[in-house]
């Protein structure tokens, strides 16, 4: 018995798809209001997800920027027992200037050191006063933090040696005391002691909500003599220290090196708790990256729910569309449409519906991002990658949620579909 030679109909593959798109557009135009309402779901979903991703990226960027502004490639050493291992120690930690000199000698790649004392002080000038945390430090502080002066000069070695009463003001502190006037050369009383302002620091912004400009620098020696008193266990003790490294130095190794020097000096044995804690900017970055990553994931997860609801809306409408057009499906089958032709027609329709909704949602997200950046001063970058991803994902969503209705349409029996009223 002869059987039909199954002819391949490949010639019209591309034109077939363009026809499917044309059929889809016609169908969508025919029910314009319904199409728009259906798209609304996907639109809001894509809008929410895109914005969530962008806000997350923006948060990441601004956190990175502020950590960088705080000072890149450095370790912070604090005289607090490191309880990270879970072992508790109630001993007070230690950190001294001599420790710093030992670190400088033994750890390679150091660019500068900034031993610090920090004391809350009251600054007064002509009846105006400002409370701030004064930092007693060395010239290394400016080198590590990259915090330069706008006016006047910063601390010099001579200031440290002579324990002179000089002050370098942060922008916020200066504005509180002097408004827009140049503070250089003026006298400020620090807890009643007169100091001369020698410099004004450039604006630095905030890190983790801390205003880096709300500060006043003075020589570490001056602070020790006049404000620390006997609050520290020894005459040489520090509140904390920055260790700045050259570019290219690997911070995890540097941290190990510093740890070894200090453990040696404090004779820490085996599993005993270190009486100091070392954190590096790299750790801060990794941690904040993780936190902003989680933050972003939570936002995206919440936003995805709206996208899911939008997708279900698409499926719902496609099912209605298939039911309404059962007779058309039967007719197309009678005229030679294969099951795959019918399936593709409805898949394309769902994908077009989703893509259009996605494109509008993306445009709205981009506009919102631009508005946020302009008015809220928070970068919300809707990048090309995010945009393409959103479009591709909404088309994909159409294929996923369109496939059940499309397959249902393709499984109809030609004659039963044709008989439907």
């Amino acid at each position, binding site marked *: *018995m*002869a*059987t*039909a030679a*199954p*002819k391949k*109909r*490949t*010639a*019209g*593959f591309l*034109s*077939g798809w*363009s*026809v499917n798109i044309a059929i889809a557009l*016609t169908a969508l135009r*025919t029910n314009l209001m319904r199409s728009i309402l259906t798209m609304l779901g996907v639109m809001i979903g894509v809008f929410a997800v895109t914005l969530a991703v962008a806000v997350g990226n923006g948060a990441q960027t601004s956190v990175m920027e502020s950590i960088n502004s705080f000072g890149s490639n450095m370790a912070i050493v604090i005289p607090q027992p490191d309880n990270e291992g879970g072992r508790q120690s109630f001993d007070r930690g230690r950190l001294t200037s001599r420790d710093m000199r030992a670190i400088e000698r033994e750890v390679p790649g150091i660019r500068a050191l900034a031993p610090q004392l920090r004391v809350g002080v009251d600054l007064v000038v002509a009846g105006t006063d400002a409370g701030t945390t004064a930092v007693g430090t060395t010239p290394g502080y400016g080198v590590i933090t990259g915090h330069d002066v706008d006016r006047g000069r910063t601390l010099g070695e001579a200031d440290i040696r002579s324990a002179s009463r000089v002050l370098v003001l942060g922008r916020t502190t200066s504005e509180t005391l002097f408004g827009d006037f140049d503070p250089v050369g003026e006298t400020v009383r620090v807890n009643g002691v007169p100091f001369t302002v020698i410099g004004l620091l450039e604006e630095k912004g905030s890190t983790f909500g801390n205003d880096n400009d709300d500060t006043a620098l003075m020589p570490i020696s001056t602070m020790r003599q006049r404000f620390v008193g006997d609050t520290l266990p020894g005459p040489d003790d520090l509140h904390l220290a920055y260790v700045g490294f050259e570019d290219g130095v690997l911070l995890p190794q540097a941290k190990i090196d510093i740890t070894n020097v200090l453990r040696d000096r404090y004779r820490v044995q085996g599993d005993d708790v270190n009486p100091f804690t070392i954190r590096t900017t790299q750790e801060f970055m990794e941690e904040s990256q993780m936190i902003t990553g989680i933050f972003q994931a939570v936002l995206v997860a919440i936003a995805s729910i709206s996208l899911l609801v939008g997708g279900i809306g698409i499926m719902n409408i496609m099912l209605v569309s298939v039911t309404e057009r059962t*007779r*058309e499906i039967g*007719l*197309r*089958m*009678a*005229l*030679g*449409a*294969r*099951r*795959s*032709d019918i399936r593709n027609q409805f898949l394309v329709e769902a994908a077009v519906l989703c893509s259009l909704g996605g494109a509008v949602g993306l445009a709205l997200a981009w506009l919102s991002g631009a508005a946020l950046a302009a008015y809220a001063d928070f970068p919300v970058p809707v990048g090309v990658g995010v945009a393409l991803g959103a479009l591709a994902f909404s088309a994909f969503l159409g294929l996923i949620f369109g496939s059940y209705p499309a397959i249902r349409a393709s499984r109809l*029996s*030609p*004659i039963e579909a*044709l008989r439907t009223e």
Partner: protein
Amino acid sequence: MAKPASPEFRTADRASNSSGRPLVETRDLVKTYTLGGEQIHAVNGVSLSIEQGEYVAIMGTSGSGKSTFMNMIGCLDVPTSGSVLIDGIETGAMSSDDLALLRNEKIGFVFQQFNLLARTSSIDNVAVPLIYAGIDTQARRELATEKLIDMGLGDRLPNTPAKLSGGQQQRVAIARALVTEPLMLLADEPTGALDTRTSAEIMAIFEQLNAAGITVIVVTHEDEIADHAKRRIAFRDGEVIEDRPVENRTIAAREMEQESVEEDA
């Protein structure tokens, strides 16, 4: 009133089955439905052949099984048992894709309710089967235009069904049925939704098509329509009760001539 179409059908390129096999052959064809636990034999063991070039009327009342029979020879419905051979090819074992291809290439359908796509121009309606034949856009437009001109609708190419009369819509549907150059035309109550005069127009078209070599199978319950055919097959209770040549055929072209003479008088 539009003048009846006077198409000149090309016969040279008409596909024909040179094999001498019947175009449609059924063997012990049975279709059984189960309705409320009761078995209904819609078609009950029908064996017949229809040769290339025939003009057949399939008669019967509603429920006689004539439509079910037509759906099976049109490869739209699957028999419960027995077989349908189209152009000598057994269709029982064919996949749904192969059946779709077979319908596309060899069978042209004309329906009572025209079944045109709404809000779609005549030319796009006629081009639909060509999409599934894998013909490119340009060729689709050309072939569809040609067939619409054949049907006397050359000035109605961009019109949607809503802008066409019933007779014009049915002529668009016939153009669509013919656009893939099928071997046979299967028409299910093609004049059921038309007035007498328009019906005569449509029957005249079938006559001309048949004269050009296309096999025409018309399903109808009206004797007036069946009398246009050359052969008459009547169904009752799922069985063929009559299969004979039509004597004193009504010639639609002549009918229409008479009508126009009466009008002129």
